[in-house]
């Protein structure tokens, strides 16, 4: 599979075409047994591809993304195209407006193959928390694709699309990228407008692309980082133009870079991931990097902090799904209160309910100081830890997860154990830092193992350039 960057060159030279690429993706999607898609848009996609092809024939291509097939996690609002959040409560919801991500990627000429599954409302690590058929790992169907953006990763891995936009609240993009062996990149919080992204936890949610290479990330990110005044929390930095720099990155660029790592995290991993992590450190050293041990003393509280803050915000964000204005409404109720209770009981899955309950409790009067408010304070301490650590290094190397992909069905047994798996991705999320997971190794069984790189706040460019330099090593 080629980079978007190179496919674009080939389309310009008429060696391939948007229609050809789209037909190939649709064929792969249709032949796949993996239930990746919630809404597949064959006809619409082919029409978009034809238009792109016409542009190429007139040498008027719009961007690197013109004519390139992609998928969107079903948390992204698409005008007139059903947007379910992979849940029952929105199974029939057709948005009256287009969200920022959908609008901008299609404006750049992107061919939308379809909307893909995820854990409902982005809550989960396996893509199994959904009433829709559960997608699995294209590398090995006994394993999950990860979550919550599992199907996004799967659609790229199984060549149903060249990239997908997922979301990352506590690791939802980095984890599936690690499980499926592709690149997952969460920009700094505030870099991509959240307008039109169904909210899970507003202070953490960030649109996050999944693709085959770091170079592709450059092609994609340019089109989803322009200033959008509809999101007041977006930083006014403007579009990130990084493609030409990325395309010229070379391993020697890494010379002299300081890479921080924490043994606390590495030692918490299983033997195969641990081995991969130490190999990664060696690889960086060989490329001329200095690897230094760093300390993130409060990071061990990050799972608790995350599951209080994210659930608290979610408890309010999901209040609008009440059966009154849109989405599922029960037909079993008489009266208002019963309508609320039954619509929500029927419409939300167990994991969503669990999180709404935790969040509601954490915000309740009498408990808020001990839970939500304290969590906000510890969040600040964790961010300070990172600031301190970045005095010693340029970026941080961390595992994405203690293990490679989980077996299917494992998550049901112990939700708390599942939460603990987020330990490696959550600290950067709580601090809003840019981070990405890139493929590095694999288990004996052949399951991919990725590594996570965490950059300084709003220094996404440096992070991507270093990751690209690492990616093109021999």
């Amino acid at each position, binding site marked *: 599979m080629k980079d978007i960057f190179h496919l674009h060159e080939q389309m310009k030279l008429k060696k391939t075409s948007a229609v050809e690429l789209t037909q190939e993706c649709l064929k792969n999607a249709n032949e796949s047994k993996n239930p990746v898609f919630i809404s597949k848009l064959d006809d619409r996609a082919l029409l978009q591809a034809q238009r792109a092809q016409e542009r190429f024939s007139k040498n008027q291509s719009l961007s690197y993304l013109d004519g390139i097939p992609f998928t969107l996690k079903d948390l992204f609002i698409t005008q007139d195209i059903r947007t379910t959040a992979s849940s029952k409560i929105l199974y029939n919801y057709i948005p009256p407006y287009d969200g920022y991500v959908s609008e901008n990627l299609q404006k750049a000429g992107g061919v939308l193959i379809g909307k893909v599954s995820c854990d409902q409302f982005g809550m989960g690590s396996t893509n199994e928390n959904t009433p829709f058929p559960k997608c699995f790992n294209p590398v090995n169907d006994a394993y999950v694709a990860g979550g919550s953006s599992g199907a996004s990763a799967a659609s790229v891995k199984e060549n149903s699309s060249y990239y997908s936009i997922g979301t990352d609240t506590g690791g939802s993009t980095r984890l599936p990228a690690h499980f499926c062996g592709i690149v997952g990149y969460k920009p700094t919080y505030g870099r991509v407008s959240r307008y039109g992204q169904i909210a899970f936890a507003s202070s953490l949610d960030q649109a996050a692309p999944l693709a085959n290479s770091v170079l592709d990330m450059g092609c994609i990110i340019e089109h989803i980082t322009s200033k959008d*005044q509809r999101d007041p929390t977006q930083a006014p930095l403007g579009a990130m133009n990084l493609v030409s720099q990325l395309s010229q990155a070379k391993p020697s660029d890494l010379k002299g870079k300081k890479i921080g790592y924490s043994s606390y995290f590495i030692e918490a991993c299983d033997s195969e991931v641990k081995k991969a992590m130490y190999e990664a450190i060696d690889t960086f050293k060989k490329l001329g990097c200095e690897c230094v041990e760093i300390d993130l003393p409060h990071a061990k509280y990050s799972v608790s902090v995350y599951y209080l803050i994210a659930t608290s915000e979610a408890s309010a964000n999901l209040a609008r799904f009440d059966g009154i204005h849109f989405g599922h409404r029960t037909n079993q109720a008489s009266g208002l209160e019963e309508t609320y209770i039954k619509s929500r009981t029927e419409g939300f899955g167990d994991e969503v309910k669990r999180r709404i309950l935790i969040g509601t409790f954490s915000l309740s009067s009498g408990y808020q100081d001990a839970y939500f408010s304290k969590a906000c304070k510890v969040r600040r301490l964790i961010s300070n830890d990172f600031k301190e650590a970045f005095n010693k290094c340029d970026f941080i190397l961390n595992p994405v997860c203690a293990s490679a992909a989980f077996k299917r069905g494992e998550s049901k047994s112990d939700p708390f154990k599942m939460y603990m798996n987020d330990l490696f991705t959550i600290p950067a999320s709580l601090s809003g830092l840019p981070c990405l997971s890139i493929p590095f190794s694999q288990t004996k069984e052949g399951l991919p193992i990725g590594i996570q790189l965490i950059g300084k706040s709003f220094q996404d460019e440096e992070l991507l350039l270093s990751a690209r330099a690492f990616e093109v090593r021999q």
Partner: protein
Amino acid sequence: MSYEAIIGLEIHAQLSTQTKAWCFCEINTTAYENTKTCPVCTAQPGTLPFLNTKAVDYAIRAGLALNCEINLLSKFDRKNYFYPDLPKGYQITQFERPIAINGSLSILDDEGHEKKVGIQRIQMEEDTGKSMHMGDSSLINLNRSGTPLIEIVGEPDIRSAKEASGYFKKIQSILVYLDICHGNMQEGNLRCDVNLSLRKKGAKEFGTRTEVKNLNSFRSVERAIAYEWERQASLLDNGQKVQQQTLLFDVESGKTRVLRTKSDADDYRYFPEPDLMPLVITQERVVKIKEELPELPDDKIRRFVTDYSLPLYDAEVLSSSLSLANYFEECLTFFDGEPKKISNWVMVELLKLINEYNADISKSPVPAKELASLVNFVQKGEISGKIGKDVLVKMYDEKKTASEVINELGVKQISDTDSIEKIVREIVDSNPGEVEKYLNGKDRVFGFFVGQVMKQTKGQANPQIVSETLKKILSEKNE
């Protein structure tokens, strides 16, 4: 037993911005249902609020006019509750750190002495949609959803129904003066919640309070307070306890009824709104808004008394609404005489008509210029004051100018001394018998002559000139 009432008012005021608080929808209360809505104010999944900076300016204006400190850093919070007219499932408000705090407003107490009522805080928030109940179904109109509001939370410094309505009136007048709220209570631009508790006279501790929600007239505020006072007093007199309740006031019966009894279950789970950045206001912005503040009612009253030599009462009545004060001052620009003359006509005659027709002074069918012209006619003696009143009614009803009506009615006074003297001479000459009687000391006959002159001039002769001329001519006869 004798009790003292501890009363605090919370006033919600809709800000009169063109567009809503978080989106670009027009604020329009008369539009068809659900036509002034968008993805944001209908809370479509994925939407985010975008703060209307005009609303912030308006809130700062209110804060400054009510002598508040403006918080240069304030925050928005979510207040969580389920209701169909609240599509997000939470209201965006300011809980922890509102935009303005620690203000005050001076009002008159029941003895007429000035007293200060503390303003605890002014917070920015948003209005909900409207529910309409029809039979066994309910309809929701979201045109109002997301309209910017300020809530003005007063300290419990008020002690009587009259003080309360005085405070509410003054707030209304200030908001309208500031041009930040239409101030129309029937349309729900202003709503008032009354918190009231009783304690024995002289006691230090507070009693349990009740809250009467959503009062939308000054009279309702007074009636609700009177009723609650009575109700709580009789509970206490009978040794019963007042329950902490939220009440609604029924305008028909004049009674309150329970909306809900407060309990621990009442928990709005406030927390910082993660979709909006903290609101940072620069000192320069505050200074600029302060410089641009219009004249407020108290200043205007003082100015009317000193500049126009009006009695305090007149100044207060005329300043009670901005449009009335503006009307008065506009009249003066077309008038040369004593401002008090205009004041009398505006306050007594014009307001009588306005009130009779339940109209609005700013849309008066008699423009200020025409009222001034009418008063000019009276002042110059061209019509009598009595006829002037009839002329005004006709001007009002038929939307005509003063001179049009005066000409039409033919009521212009004859003040021309020569023509009056001519008439008087004719009458004196043709009634020698009556002249005789007058000269013999029958003073009453003077009235006969006046009557004759008026009869001949259809009442239009200037009475003063008639009387002077008569005296002159009759005294000639005596020589």
